[in-house]
């Protein structure tokens, strides 16, 4: 096993973990955190794939940087929705999933 | 030299597992944040050790990491203050939230 395989498999495992958290978690902040794990695992996988062959390929790196910024924007909006929702409802979960 | 530096880097990383145990255990939020702080310093150390191995540009990453770790610590202190915007050194009763509704 090479080091690249190690990172790719770590990425794949992170994607699975993130997907689990995104679906299974109730607390919305946990879900947003899981979304970020999922995204970063995906980037790790793509980055490992791009580092194969001779020398790292800059194209995936640029795509990943774009993806990281997009993920932060989305997280910020999601966090805003969560806080605004909690202010009105006093809960940090979706209404249908409240205990 | 590559061998030694990787060994030290791996050692520092392995030592961080202990810090992670503290993050998991707590019991106070401050304990968890301390653990994170040690991981931050450890990460900076590992990046320094990687610099002679691959590219010295790793030092730029270390610089950013050190700077942003400080931001995270300020964020932590703010988040644990009663109204989410205070300072633990303030002596008077922190003003309650002014927002209504």
């Amino acid at each position, binding site marked *: 096993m090479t080091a690249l395989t190690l990172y790719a498999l770590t990425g794949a495992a992170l994607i699975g973990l993130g997907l689990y958290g995104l679906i299974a978690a109730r607390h919305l902040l946990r879900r947003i955190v899981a979304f970020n794990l999922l995204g970063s695992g995906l980037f790790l996988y793509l980055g490992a794939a791009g580092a194969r062959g001779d020398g790292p390929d800059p194209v995936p790196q640029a795509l990943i940087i774009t993806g990281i910024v997009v993920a932060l924007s989305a997280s910020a909006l999601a966090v805003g929705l969560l806080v605004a929702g909690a202010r009105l409802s006093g809960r940090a979960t979706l209404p249908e999933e409240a205990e | *030299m590559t061998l*030694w*530096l990787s060994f*030290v880097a791996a*050692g*520092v990383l392995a*030592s*961080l*597992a*202990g*810090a992670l*145990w*503290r993050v998991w255990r*707590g*019991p*106070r*939020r*401050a*304990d968890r*944040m*301390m*653990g994170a*702080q*040690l991981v931050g*310093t*450890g990460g*900076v*150390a590992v990046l*320094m*050790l990687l*610099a*002679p191995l691959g590219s*010295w540009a790793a*030092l*730029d990453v*270390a*610089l950013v990491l*050190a*700077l942003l*770790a*400080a931001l995270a*610590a*300020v964020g*932590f*202190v703010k988040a*644990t*203050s009663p109204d989410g915007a205070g300072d*633990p*050194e303030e002596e008077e009763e922190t003003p309650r939230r002014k927002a209504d509704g």
Partner: protein
Amino acid sequence: MADVATVVLTGIGLFFFLAGTAGLMRFPDTFSRLHALTKADNLGLGFIALGVAFQAATWREVALLALIWALALLAAGTVSQLVARAALGEEETR
């Protein structure tokens, strides 16, 4: 010569990191842990920076190493004070 210095200094750095972790795990309360931690990781980082500096090809890199260490020192000093204050107001739960 430079290589020997690097090996010795980074080795000492590693020792301090291990010691800091041990302190963080073993000391009984938040404040003693904080005390142990700050010393250990600042010293550890300092020795590692110094050790790596012996491998640097240019002065720019040495200066960068010094800057990073200074920044980490400043941040750690401030943070430990603030975290200690924050911990004072917090009961022993989550």
